[in-house]
């Protein structure tokens, strides 16, 4: 069949499909009737068929290009995945997150070691040698931490008035979740970025905690951090897990090409990051509205804080049924 005949025979089909595409996408989207929708797959296949013929018979490039455009547009509509987002979020929080952690037990432990290991070492060293903090942090930063947790202070965490809880909530969301995302993302540089952020934050936390004990401000500091720390520190560790997973795919891709290994691991890692996001949101909320409160006694804060830690780890490690 010559091109002319071919065009004359099928032009009607192409035009009909083109009109249908315009109806289904773009700014003038209209609701299609049930009949039109049920015809779509057949019409799409017909266009694919036309394209295959046009290519095979080397019809003119313009015709091939025209059909190619139609197929691409049809393809995008036809393979649009239906995303039932509400149900998936619920499923994820109930089981998915914990399952993802439990599938990576080894990595979960490793990230704990990378974060808490240096933190504990520096903590112990600073207890033995209180001046160590001044070689790690600038003087004015140390001073600002001291004033923050001074027991004579009426409000904890930051110097502030009572109506600024919400402001701090925003501040924690922006900073802490940003740090979580950064810890994950920089893992793509062969895990180096993630390792840096985990160790850096660990050391920072360790040295501050030890210094607070050295100057005997622990009653304000530990009652402040114990609550939100349960979700926040765990979230940072999990973000580290996700980042290491990403970078490790590049270091040891196994039976895949490096690129494919990276794609596969990113799909898994982002499953962890949803949880990190959820945890950090929770942490910001607790930190702004609970931890900073001065009307709640320290005993209550310790009890609630300890329960939160237990809750977080049982939530993550409680065995789930396999999918």
């Amino acid at each position, binding site marked *: 069949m010559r091109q002319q005949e071919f065009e004359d025979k099928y032009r009607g089909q192409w035009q009909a499909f083109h009109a249908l595409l315009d109806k289904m996408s773009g700014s003038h989207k209209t609701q299609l009737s049930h009949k039109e929708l049920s015809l779509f797959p057949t019409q799409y296949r017909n266009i*694919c068929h036309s*394209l295959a013929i046009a290519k095979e018979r080397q019809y003119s490039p313009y015709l091939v290009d025209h059909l190619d455009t139609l197929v691409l547009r049809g*393809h995008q509509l036809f393979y649009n995945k239906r995303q039932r987002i509400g149900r998936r979020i619920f499923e994820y929080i109930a089981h998915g997150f914990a399952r993802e952690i439990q599938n990576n037990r080894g990595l979960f432990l490793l990230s704990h070691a990378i974060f808490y290991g240096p933190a504990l070492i520096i903590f112990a060293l600073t207890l033995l040698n209180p001046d160590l903090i001044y070689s790690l942090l600038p003087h004015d930063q140390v001073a600002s931490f001291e004033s923050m947790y001074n027991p004579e202070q009426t409000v904890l965490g930051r110097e502030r008035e009572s109506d600024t809880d919400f402001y701090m909530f925003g501040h924690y969301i922006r900073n802490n979740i940003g740090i979580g995302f950064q810890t994950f*993302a920089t893992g793509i540089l062969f895990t180096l970025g993630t390792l840096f952020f985990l160790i850096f934050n660990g050391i920072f936390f360790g040295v501050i905690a030890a210094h607070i004990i050295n100057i005997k401000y622990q009653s304000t500091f530990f009652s402040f951090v114990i609550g939100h720390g349960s979700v926040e520190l765990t979230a940072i560790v999990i973000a580290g897990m996700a980042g290491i997973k990403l970078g490790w795919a590049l270091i040891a891709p196994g039976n895949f090409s490096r690129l494919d290994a990276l794609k596969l691991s990113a799909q898994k890692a982002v499953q962890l990051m949803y949880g990190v996001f959820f945890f950090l949101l929770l942490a910001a909320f607790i930190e702004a509205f609970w931890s900073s409160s001065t009307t709640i006694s320290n005993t209550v804060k310790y009890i609630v804080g300890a329960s939160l830690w237990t809750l977080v780890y049982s939530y993550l490690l409680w065995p789930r049924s396999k999918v």
Partner: protein
Amino acid sequence: MLDTNLRVEVPEGIAINLPLAGPVVRCLAFLIDLLIRIGVYLALGTVFGVMGIFGEGLMLICLFAIEWFYPVVFEIFNGGATPGKKLFEVAVVNDDGTPVTWGASIVRNILRAADMFPFLYLTGLVSMLLNGQFKRLGDLAAGTIVIHRKTYSHSGHLPEAKSHKAKVALTLEEQSALLHFGERSGQLSKARSLELADILAPVVDGQESSQRMAAILGIANWLRGRR
């Protein structure tokens, strides 16, 4: 052929061409998005500014949400294109040609943090230039590409001419080239068409360039099936 198309095979058993978008158009789209975001920040700043410290808190939350999720929301709900991308008619799709999914969009946008390193998206730019499909790190991990959105379909017009068979046997590729030339002749300047027609002087009848041109159009018409 030397072009930036990515051939992808679809389940219908044929290959389609995805025209990849390069770094320049993507940078421009990014700049437009940046301007839009700055505009939104200014507008929000004015509104929340009058609400005091509470407003500042809201502002920080909005800053966070826009910084990280502005592209995600548009990529999912606006056919893969942020307003900047829409303006330049490019869009994000999965590298199998299907619309971008939540997971992929979130991965590619969180990984901006790595692409930004150490400043001005240098890592991302280097990655784009080294990769045959112009992928930045986020695209590599998410398995996404940015393509030119083809919504127009340009069908060439072959001028009518008395059709006749070619003097020599033509391969399929040669036939296709002649057809393509015939359909493009309207877009080329007259002088250029004649110049190109002269290349075929040994195998086409005619003394003058214009006669050869007519002969070529005749062959193209014949190939197209106008007898």
